[in-house]
């Protein structure tokens, strides 16, 4: 017989608290799994976040101490720091909440499950909105907390500054978050098949705007870092202090708390919180009203996918890997096509190296009379550090998972008449070519921008290329040694145990490389002549090359040995 407990009574919608309880249970289970199964990974995550957080705190602390030396200027400059920081956070939070909310509401299977049950759409939107806000606000926690703690420490602020800034953060986050939620809804309604393209266009437009604005600011005065230039700089920034911007309210809360005016701070806190509640409610209701149509469009819009002929990728692979046999080239061609057709991969390289290139193009203008020997060596050293750090993030995120991803296609790759050693070597050569082209282009720009003498130019070029070999060899080798064949998501593979080990090993390699390159630069500067090789610099250079090459050889050999006997 039919149980009448559900069928005859009035329908009671499950409360939002139930979904919140579900999310907390998921979080608890995840945490329990981490502590039980991979405590080392958890420890490393905490250690890394703590290091970054502590490092930022120290930097901000020193910046505020430095600014404090110029009392008159500090009075003007410090409020600007807060206004700029929260204005930038508004953009970042809106953008990241939009991406997260789109993923949570329109990409995953979870909303379909929840909406097929008698859950009101407002509850489904509400929980996804809260989840997106939680993850998006990590940037504010990571950057904002050390900033606030540093100003609190340097200025010796009273205890009530700390709860006020935390409340200010809590009130602020939902305002850009609500904009992001509505942005995600608009994408689902009007461009459901192109969310990544939309995100890329908006992000690119934002970046282009910032670059053009920065370029205008930079060109505004011939005497950079002069008083005129600083006045002009602050004049250009007046928009971020507009009274109607929520970022200005939060900046005012912080400023008034620093000036020990709690009444004023509480007034702006009230304005921020009331706006936050209102816009969140409004955005949630609008999204809930349009959720089903938007969900339907996102999941069922006709696929007007572009057709690919693939001739460009084929020509590119033929040209770049002409020296390889056809079977290895075929494997590389597959990876080249995957790379070119996945904006997540190439956009990271383009954005990071693009920004670095832009800085290098503007670098000579900052000192038209040219750099001294010391400055040349220092900037060259910093450029090498920046390039290798970017390389390490790229190889950890995209090169390491390359072997794991093949696990899904091992029925194909595993049955090819291609030995596993050749698979590994093909992957390595592909990754090396890609990273070397990007890194060496920026390095050549750096050498030209600084007009480096031949000795230092050769040292920087060779060190960068050796780092490419070391980092790619490490990522491919560890990728084969510690693969994760259960996941098909590159991000999840990169954030797993193997990915974390690779990230740490890469950072250590970069740190050692940067240390050795720093030694080369220092040795050349101490000799007073960047044109002549010293014994110390030569020894350090050989050590750096040997370190990179041996890292690549050891990890590739170890990875190959494991991959040969790997069961799928």
């Amino acid at each position, binding site marked *: 017989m039919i149980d009448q407990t559900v069928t005859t009574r009035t329908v009671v919608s499950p409360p939002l608290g139930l979904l919140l309880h579900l999310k907390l249970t998921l979080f608890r289970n995840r945490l329990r799994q981490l502590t039980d199964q991979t405590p080392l990974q958890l420890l490393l995550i905490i250690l890394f976040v703590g290091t970054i957080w502590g490092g930022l705190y120290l930097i901000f602390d020193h910046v505020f101490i430095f600014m404090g030396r110029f009392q008159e200027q500090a009075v003007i400059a410090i409020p600007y720091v807060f206004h700029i920081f929260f204005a930038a956070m508004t953009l970042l939070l809106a953008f990241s909440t939009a991406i997260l909310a789109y993923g949570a509401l329109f990409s995953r299977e979870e909303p379909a499950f929840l909406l097929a049950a008698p859950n009101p759409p407002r509850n489904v939107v509400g929980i996804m909105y809260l989840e997106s806000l939680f993850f998006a606000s990590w940037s504010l926690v990571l950057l904002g907390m050390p900033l606030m703690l540093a100003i609190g420490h340097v200025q010796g602020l009273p205890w009530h500054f700390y709860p006020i800034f935390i409340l200010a953060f809590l009130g602020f986050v939902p305002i850009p978050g609500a904009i992001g939620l509505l942005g995600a809804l608009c994408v689902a309604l009007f461009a459901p098949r192109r969310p990544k393209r939309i995100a890329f266009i908006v992000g690119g437009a934002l970046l282009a705007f910032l670059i053009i604005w920065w370029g205008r600011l930079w060109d505004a005065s011939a005497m950079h870092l002069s008083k005129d230039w600083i006045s002009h700089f602050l004049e250009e920034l007046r928009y971020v202090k507009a009274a109607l911007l929520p970022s200005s309210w939060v900046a005012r809360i912080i400023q008034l708390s620093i000036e020990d005016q709690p009444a004023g701070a509480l007034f702006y806190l009230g304005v921020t919180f009331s706006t936050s509640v209102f816009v969140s409610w409004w955005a949630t209701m609008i999204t809930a009203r349009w959720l089903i149509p938007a969900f339907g469009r996102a999941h069922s*819009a*006709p696929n007007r996918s572009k057709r690919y002929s693939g001739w460009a990728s084929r020509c590119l692979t033929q040209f770049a890997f002409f020296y390889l046999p056809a079977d290895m080239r075929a494997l590389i061609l597959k990876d080249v096509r995957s790379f070119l057709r996945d904006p997540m991969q190439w956009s990271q390289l383009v954005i990071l190296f693009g920004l670095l290139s832009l800085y290098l193009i503007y670098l000579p203008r900052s000192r038209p009379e040219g750099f001294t020997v010391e400055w040349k060596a220092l900037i060259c050293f910093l450029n090498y550090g920046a390039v290798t750090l970017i390389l390490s993030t790229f190889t950890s995120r995209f090169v390491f998972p390359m072997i794991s991803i093949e696990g899904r296609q091992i029925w194909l790759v595993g049955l090819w008449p291609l030995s596993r050693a050749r698979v590994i070597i093909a992957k390595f050569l592909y990754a090396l070519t890609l990273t070397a082209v990007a890194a060496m282009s920026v390095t050549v720009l750096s050498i030209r921008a600084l007009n480096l003498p031949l000795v230092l130019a050769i040292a920087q070029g060779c060190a960068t290329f050796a780092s490419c070999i070391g980092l790619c060899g490490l990522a491919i080798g560890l990728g084969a040694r510690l693969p994760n064949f259960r996941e098909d998501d590159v991000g999840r593979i990169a954030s797993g145990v193997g990915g974390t080990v690779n990230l740490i090993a890469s950072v250590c390699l970069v740190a050692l490389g940067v240390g050795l390159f720093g030694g080369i630069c220092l040795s050349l500067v101490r000799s007073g002549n960047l044109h002549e090789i010293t014994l110390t610099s030569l020894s350090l250079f050989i050590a750096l090359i040997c370190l990179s090459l041996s890292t690549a050889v050891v990890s590739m050999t170890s990875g190959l040995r494991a991959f040969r006997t790997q069961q799928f």
Partner: protein
Amino acid sequence: MAIVIDNLTKSYGALRAVDDVSLHVKPGEVFAFLGPNGAGKTTTIKTITGLLTPDCGTITVCGHPMATESQAAKAKLAYVPDQPFLYGKLTAREFMGFVARMYSIDPATAARRAETYMEALAVSPFADQLAEGYSHGMKQRVVLAAALLHEPQVLVVDEPMIGLDPRTVRSVKELFGNLADEGRTVFMSTHTLDVAEAIADRIGIIHHGRIISCGTLAELRAKARQEYRLEDIFLELTSSEEPPEADTVALAG
């Protein structure tokens, strides 16, 4: 009527996925919904469950129009999609507990039913493991058990037999038969024609978004005027590029 679909139309841009479909499914009936890939089965199912809004037409579940009383309609149905959804970081038992609370079932009843369905679908041996380690078949069984927890009057299932071993297929077939005997409705989309032939009371065939044939297996055979197997009827009806008119279906021998 358990499910009433009247003049349902749903388009995606220029593509008409479902074109003026009307269907009435009675309580206590196992209805098999067949059609080639892209015929409009999943779109129809998603519209019945309220996940898609129709461009035209109405859907009523147990007397509750989905457009205006969606909460009441959803309380009386359960949906098992073709790709079973589970939270990877929940165990099957925790998932069942969450579903029970979602449908406001009291804990004692929920625990009793959960044990019954987990036993029937052989979920118990892995009920306390995290779902992220389950195979497709295990997930399918858990989702099916969870869907039955609030004892829905209408069970909508999309490809229920994919990934299940023969023993579980037998259990699921028996389960669907028992549900129908209790007066509940099973609306099942499937490509497994043997299953449809074995347990369905009525069969509807959709092609290019239109219902081209609907009736009992005997009625479909009578239309064909020969002792066809369902597979032959299905292949014959869906062989054309353009859908034949529903009223003039010719099942030539």
